[in-house]
């Protein structure tokens, strides 16, 4: 490990405390992402992967969320000990997010220009010609005719274009790490592939790291350098993508991989993951 890590998470524990009970959503998660690396965080709904992603910059509402253990190091500093101003500089500036639902992640009353412009003004006040910078990013994420799109409102764009605009917004601040929380789940399969490819291309060009959060092992294969599998708030397995896919160690990983639909097999039904049995085992 010669390159410094973009982020190091050690023994992170996040608990939700509410009147109806206490839930340990993240239990002792440790992970590190190197510069320019893509880590896929895989798991089912409720496994804690989105909570982990949001916890990286303390985006969880506190309370009910509470950090019970661990530390999150970004550039050598612990996010959990940062002031609000420092946090705001990390959010968007060093760690940028792209969320699942592009149609609702863009504010409906503002056009593309003012939304991406907001990001640039927040984190790169030195940029003089904001419009030119926006156009440059729109072009880079593959939005055709970017100068015309400046004045478009979110509802005038297709889902794929909206997600590209979100990515442009996230990348326009030159983050070290892009957290993509199920970025393609709301999109159709063709667009999914294009968006993922776009993210990978931009990752190589810019040299940023990517934390890709997904429940779909199918999209991990061509994209991620390493995979971390989350189950019930814990990382149960972590390793090189090829190795994990070829020789999964944990029964849950095996179960997830068995759920990838394959063409050309006579499989009639996909297997169902037996949570009770897995929980009893590990």
């Amino acid at each position, binding site marked *: 490990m010669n390159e410094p890590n973009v982020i190091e998470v050690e023994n992170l524990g996040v608990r939700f405390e509410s009147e109806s009970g206490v839930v340990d959503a993240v239990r002792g998660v440790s992970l590190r992402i190197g510069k320019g690396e893509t880590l896929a965080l895989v798991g089912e709904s409720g496994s804690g992967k989105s909570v982990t992603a949001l916890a990286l*910059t303390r985006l969880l509402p506190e309370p009910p969320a509470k950090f019970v253990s661990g530390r999150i190091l970004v550039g050598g500093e612990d996010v959990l000990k940062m002031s609000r101003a420092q946090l705001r500089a*990390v959010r968007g500036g060093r760690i940028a997010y792209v*969320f699942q639902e592009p149609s*609702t992640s863009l*504010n*409906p*009353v503002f056009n593309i220009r003012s939304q991406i412009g*907001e990001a640039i003004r*927040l984190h790169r006040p030195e940029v003089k010609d904001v419009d030119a910078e926006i156009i440059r990013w729109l072009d880079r994420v593959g939005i055709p005719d970017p100068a015309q799109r400046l004045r478009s409102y979110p509802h005038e764009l297709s889902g794929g274009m909206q997600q590209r605009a979100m990515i442009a917004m996230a990348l326009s601040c030159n983050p070290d790490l892009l957290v993509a929380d199920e970025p393609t789940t709301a999109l159709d399969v063709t667009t999914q592939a294009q968006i993922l490819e776009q993210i990978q291309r931009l990752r190589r060009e810019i040299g940023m790291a990517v934390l890709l959060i997904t429940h779909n092992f199918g999209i991990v294969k061509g994209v991620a350098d390493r995979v971390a599998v989350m189950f019930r708030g814990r990382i149960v397995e972590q390793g090189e993508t090829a190795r994990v896919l070829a020789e999964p160690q944990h029964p849950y990983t095996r179960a997830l991989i068995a759920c990838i639909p394959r063409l050309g097999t006579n499989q009639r039904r996909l297997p169902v993951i037996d949570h009770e049995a897995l929980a009893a085992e590990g």
Partner: protein
Amino acid sequence: MRRRFRADPVAMGAAVVLVLLLVTAALFFTLRLFQIPFPANPDLTDLAGKLRPPGPDAWLGTDNLGRDVCTRLLHGTYISLMVGVVAVVVAVGIGVVVGAVSGYAGGWVDNVLMRIVDAMMCFPSFFLILTVVALLGPSLFNVILVMGLVGWTGSARLVRAEFLSLRESEYVRAARALGQSHLGIVFRHIFPNAAGPIFVTAVLGVPGAILSEASLSFLGLGVQPPQSTWGNIIADGRTYLLDAWWLILFPGVAILITALSFYLVGDGLRRAAQTKRERE
């Protein structure tokens, strides 16, 4: 939304009436400012010609002091409109601040503010206004101020509800993830999305304020004579109700038309702002 509002004949008709009222108010306010007696001095008494029924000399008749009712009505327009609009602006202004803080902060702040709202709402607002005006002394300024200070609770609740739901929206989360500050989120992302409903309730609140002013003036606690307002024309005329119906009818109709047009415009705006799904 603008297109849907234009296609609504009732709302457009009411809007035209409102514009005419506003023009009248502005015109007569200017006349008063420069002391130009047009069409006549509204306070000019003529005891020889008192209580004349509507006719060619006095279109809407004269009152017990021989003052021309039509002139007094025209000069009273801006008072009614100003009281209605300014009181609502004050009320909604307070309501937006309280509601925004309450809805955005949540937790104990929200609890405390909403219990205050509940407590305020327990008082019958008109009696509260009456009491405070009686204590402070009746004047145009006091009437507006008190109606504003009493009337903010409804809009505070509405704004709180809007903020509560918008706070959880994805684009607010995205803005937080972008490193936007709380103030930036409130002003840039939440408020513009809540502005529509806030504006509609404000417009719908104006007729209530106009009626309150008229009621206060009728009870002698509103704007003081000789300044004519629609409310105190009625108040002065009530003694002569059986002999001089025109003293009550015309200001009453003026209040009705104004209140109704504000209401219809507000309702038209509300319907025009609805999404397709809400209309069905």
